């Protein structure tokens, strides 16, 4: 019974509170190797005899990536491990080096679309999940000292920011905030739009 090596290069890719465990494939000529993943939170280490919990979606998977977002759902240090399986043969566990805490996730600026609807300044933000709040800054171009702010705990389709002066240009930028880890992303690039010109006057 040939020994199966443990998976190597085990690491986590974490962006915007979505966490994926990845590893290098174990190659056995002419055979399909499967993998199983388990996790262990600080609670399991400190209070449950160092027990490990299997992730059923990644049990006997042929993929070399596992979405662990649902299970890394507290702001504590987690450990993760993977093993290879071929028929009845199982490899030793390959354990990710060190710990993973979701506080280290990388936060990208939000995607937003700014529109001028007549005199109305509108913004549309891409939904990023329940953990995300948005801080939107907007100002009349040339009046950078008078920036206004709107904080949105939930994303609705289109948000009215302000009523603009005729013909004036307004600028908007935004960042995300994740309360669970008390961190914010950097700001998105600034987008500016111009309000419609004043059409009320009579021109003779």
């Amino acid at each position: 019974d040939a020994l199966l090596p443990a998976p190597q290069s085990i690491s986590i890719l974490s962006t915007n509170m979505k966490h994926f465990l990845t590893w290098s494939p174990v190659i056995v000529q002419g055979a399909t190797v499967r993998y199983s993943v388990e996790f262990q939170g600080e609670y399991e280490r400190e209070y449950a005899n160092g027990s490990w919990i299997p992730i059923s979606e990644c049990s006997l998977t042929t993929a070399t990536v596992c979405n662990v977002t649902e299970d890394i759902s507290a702001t504590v240090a987690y450990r993760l491990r993977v093993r290879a399986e071929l028929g009845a043969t199982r490899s030793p566990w390959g354990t990710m080096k060190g710990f993973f805490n979701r506080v280290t996730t990388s936060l990208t600026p939000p995607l937003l679309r700014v529109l001028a609807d007549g005199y109305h300044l509108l913004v549309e933000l891409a939904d990023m999940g329940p953990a995300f709040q948005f801080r939107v800054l907007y100002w009349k171009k040339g009046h950078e000292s008078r920036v206004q702010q709107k904080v949105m705990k939930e994303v609705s389709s289109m948000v009215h920011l302000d009523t603009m002066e005729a013909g004036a240009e307004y600028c908007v930028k935004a960042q995300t905030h994740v309360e669970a880890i008390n961190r914010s992303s950097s700001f998105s690039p600034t987008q500016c739009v111009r309000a419609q010109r004043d059409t009320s006057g009579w021109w003779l």
Partner: protein
Amino acid sequence: GACRVSMSMTEIRAGFTAIKANIQSRDPIRTLSILSHPQSLHKVKSSDRCCITHHLFTFYVDKVFKHCRTEDSFVNRKISSIANSFLSARRKLGQCREQNNCVCGEESTEKFKQILANYEGLNVTSAAMKSLGELDILLDWMEKSR
């Protein structure tokens, strides 16, 4: 004293809601309550809230979660999620208690003793499952008293 601790109540609530029916179905003793007998948590004075919340988090971390392991992998994963969230929150609460010197009043000390007595009055697995099944009582009280 006041203890404003940011914790993911939404995540804990979502995790509990996902397994509530399963956990409560394992609790055959409907006539007893661990958290609400003889008096509701809502009777606790606001000045004592920080202290009793810390006590209750310690109670769940030390006594309850470890006795709730089931044969259901999904349930075990959600219990792990809640347990680790409680651990993280308790740490913040502990820091807050030290900074604000939240002392426990006589009433809340008595209330917490009653909760422990209710818990010890049952065999450990039943007591743990009942306590976990009553988590929404604790979450409701915490959200109401924010």
